[in-house]
C-alpha cells in the first residue's frame, strides 16, 4: 500500500514537473518571440531613424541628446557629440524672418509641444557654414525611459520654397504682362474708336476735307497695325507661359 502511494506521488510529481517544464518552454517561446518582435521593432525604428532623409533629433528640456545622420548632414556637422552640445536656437539665425528672436521663439514652440503633445511650424535654420535654409519642423512629445522627451523632425524645404517662389514670380510676371497688354489693347482701341467717331462726325457735318480724313484714317490704320502686333506679343507670352499649346494653335496665335 505504501509502495503504491509513493509510486502515485512520484507519478504526480513527474506530471507536475512535465507541466511546469512545458509551461516554461511556452513562456520561453513567448519571451523569445516578444524579444524577437522587440528586436525587429528596434531594428525597424532604428532603420527609419538612421535612414531618414529628414533630420530627426531627440531632446528634453535640457537640450538635444541624440540625432540621426541626416541631422549632421543637414546642419553640416561631423559628430553627434558636436550636435548635442547645441541649443535649437544655435542651429538657427539670431532672428526669424518675422523679426522674432530665434531663442525665444524656439522656447515657445518647445513649450507648446510639451503642453499639447506636438507642434508643427516653418522655421529658418542655419547650417554650420552660416547658410540659412527654410525648414518644416514637427515636434512630438512622448514618454521614454520614464522621461518626457521631444522628437524634432526637421525637413529642409529649400527646393520647395525655391519652386514656389519661381512659380509665384512667373505668375507675377505673367500678370504684369497681362495688365500691360490689357492697357495696350483696351485703351488704344478706345482711342481708335473715338478717333473714328470724330472722323464720322466731321464727315456727317461736312467739316472734313478728303485730305484731312485720309490722314486721320491713315493714323488709325497705323494704330490698328500696332494693336495687332501688341496682340501677337500677348499671345506669345501666353503660349510661352502655358507651354501645352499645339503647334497649329501656336502658329495661329503668334503669327
Amino acid at each position, binding site marked *: 500500500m505504501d509502495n503504491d502511494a509513493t509510486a502515485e506521488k512520484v507519478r504526480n510529481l513527474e506530471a507536475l514537473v512535465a507541466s511546469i517544464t512545458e509551461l516554461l518552454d511556452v513562456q520561453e517561446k513567448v519571451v523569445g518571440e516578444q524579444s524577437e518582435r522587440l528586436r525587429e521593432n528596434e531594428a525597424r525604428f532604428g532603420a527609419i531613424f538612421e535612414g531618414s532623409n529628414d533630420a530627426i533629433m531627440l531632446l528634453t528640456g535640457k537640450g538635444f541628446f541624440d540625432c540621426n545622420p541626416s541631422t549632421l548632414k543637414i546642419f553640416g556637422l561631423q559628430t553627434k557629440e558636436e550636435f548635442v552640445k547645441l541649443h535649437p536656437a544655435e542651429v538657427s539665425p539670431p532672428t526669424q524672418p518675422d523679426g522674432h528672436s530665434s531663442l525665444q521663439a524656439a522656447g515657445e514652440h518647445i513649450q507648446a509641444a510639451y503642453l499639447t503633445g506636438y507642434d508643427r511650424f516653418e522655421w529658418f535654420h542655419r547650417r554650420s557654414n552660416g547658410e540659412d535654409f527654410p525648414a518644416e519642423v514637427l515636434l512630438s512629445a512622448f514618454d521614454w525611459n520614464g522621461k518626457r522627451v521631444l522628437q524634432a523632425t526637421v525637413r529642409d524645404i529649400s527646393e520647395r520654397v525655391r519652386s514656389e517662389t519661381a512659380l509665384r514670380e512667373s505668375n507675377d510676371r505673367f500678370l504684369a504682362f497681362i495688365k500691360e497688354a490689357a492697357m495696350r489693347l483696351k485703351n488704344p482701341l478706345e*482711342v481708335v474708336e473715338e478717333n473714328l467717331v470724330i472722323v464720322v462726325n466731321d464727315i456727317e457735318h461736312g467739316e472734313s476735307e478728303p485730305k*484731312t480724313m485720309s490722314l486721320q484714317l*491713315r493714323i488709325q490704320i497705323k494704330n490698328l497695325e500696332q494693336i495687332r502686333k501688341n496682340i501677337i506679343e500677348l499671345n506669345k507670352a501666353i503660349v510661352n507661359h502655358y507651354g501645352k499649346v499645339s503647334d497649329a494653335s501656336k502658329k495661329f496665335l503668334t503669327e
Partner: protein
Amino acid sequence: MVFPITDIKDEEIYLIMASACDIRNENIELIKGLLAKDYSVLVITTNQPYDILKKNYEKRGIATEKIFFIDTVTKYAIGHDHEPVNNCRFVNNPADMTSIGIAVTESLSGFKEKKVSLLFDSVNSMLIYISSQNITKFIHFITNKLRLMNFSGIFLAVEKGLDPDVLTQLTTFVDVVIDIDKIPRKDS
C-alpha cells in the same frame, strides 16, 4: 466738363484725366486757357496730327503763333516727310523716344518767353506704341526738364483703363492730378 484753366498755377505740373470722348475738347480748352494766361505752349501730340490740330484750333478762333508742336504721328502715317512748317517738328514715329526727347529738349530751350507750358496729348495714345515702363520713364524725363526750366506742364490721359500701378507712378511725377469727371459742374 472742362478743367477751369484759371486754376492752373505757374511752374506746376498736372495730370488731367478725362474720358476718351472729352480728350479732344479738353485739349482745345486747355490751349485756349493757357494762351489767355499769356503762356507759350509746346504741344506734344501722339494722337491728332499737326494739320488737324491746327485746323481745329483755328476753327475755334485760336491763334497758333504762340504754339509750337512736336508731331509724332504724321510722318509715321503718311510714310514720308511733311512739308517743313515753322512751328512744328515732325518725329519719325511715336515709339522713337530718343527723337522725341531731343525734340522736347531743343524746343523748350528755344522758347525766349518766360511763361511756357507743355501739353502732352495723350498718355493713352502713346501706350499703343511703347510700354508703360517706358512711358513712365519718358514722362519722368519731361517733368524733370520742366522743373529745371521752371515751366509748367499738363499731361492728358484717358481716365479709364490706365493700370492703377502706372497711374500711381505717374502721380508721383506731377503736382496735381485732376479727374475732369469729378469736378463739380457749375450751373450755367
